[in-house]
């Protein structure tokens, strides 16, 4: 979304997060004009921010072009998405592909490629369909293992030194 020149960064961040969230909540809650509604929160937009919101035209105002609401997916969302296919991004790092996908998507993140034991656990997790709890449990387990792996990796010389000292001590006692 391009931003008008007269809007400050702070106004943009407030309006594009708070208002769409409330808009979608009202829409998904089937709140119609005139309905009584109760809302809680501490954010109170200034008058000029409210004015900016009212003169902003939501891209999905017409239900026929509203791909952002899952409940509309059955009716017309597929028809609304008519973009040319994307070029395929080259995979320069290992990318985990969920069993639900079955192929490399055109675009993917490359920030933190899977590695080590946590990578194996995550790989196993993505072999389980996403509607199964086991998938998410394995991914969470992989996260915790990842944390310990990274701690050991950062202190690898300390760990290796302690292990070597332990072996020496054990040998001396055995002798």
């Amino acid at each position, binding site marked *: 979304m*391009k931003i008008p020149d007269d809007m400050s960064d702070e106004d943009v961040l407030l309006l594009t997060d708070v208002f769409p969230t409330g808009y979608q909540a009202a829409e998904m809650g089937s709140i119609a004009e005139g309905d009584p509604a109760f809302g809680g929160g501490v954010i109170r937009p200034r008058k000029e921010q409210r004015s900016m919101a009212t003169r902003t035209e939501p891209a999905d105002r017409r239900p026929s072009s509203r791909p*952002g609401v899952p409940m509309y997916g059955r009716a017309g*969302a597929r028809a609304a998405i008519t973009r040319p296919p994307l070029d395929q991004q080259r995979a320069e790092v290992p990318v985990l592909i969920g069993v639900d996908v079955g192929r490399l998507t055109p675009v993917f993140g490359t920030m933190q490629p899977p590695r080590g034991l946590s990578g194996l656990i995550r790989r196993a997790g993505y072999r389980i369909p996403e509607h199964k709890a086991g998938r998410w449990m394995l991914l969470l387990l992989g996260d915790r293992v990842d944390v310990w792996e990274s701690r050991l990796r950062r202190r690898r010389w300390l760990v290796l030194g302690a292990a070597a000292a332990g072996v020496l001590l054990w040998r001396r006692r055995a002798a």
Partner: protein
Amino acid sequence: MLAMAYLGPSRVKAVKKPEPRLEHPNDVLLRVTRAAICGSDVHLYHGLIPDTRVGSTFGHEFVGVVEELGPSVETLARGDRPRPSGPASSATATPPAVTTAGRRNSCACRSRTSGR
């Protein structure tokens, strides 16, 4: 560049990371001018979102100025101020089902936000 890195539940640190680069013809490189913390970032910070990898940089509520564009980008120009939105995705391909169901905000097929 200096960026926030996730080290584990409730642990983050500012670390040096490689400069971001274009990886796809549709990629856009932004210089972030203002960022906010979303409730989703707090869930990530607490380690409650599955597959949050150590070293990840959080943040998806931000405004920036376009510095570099991929050759396939037609709707933006250098110097534009777009307001992106999307999940930060790690090296994982997101199911196409989220696209076909219209949930583009959950899909890495069409867009991704990478803090590297």
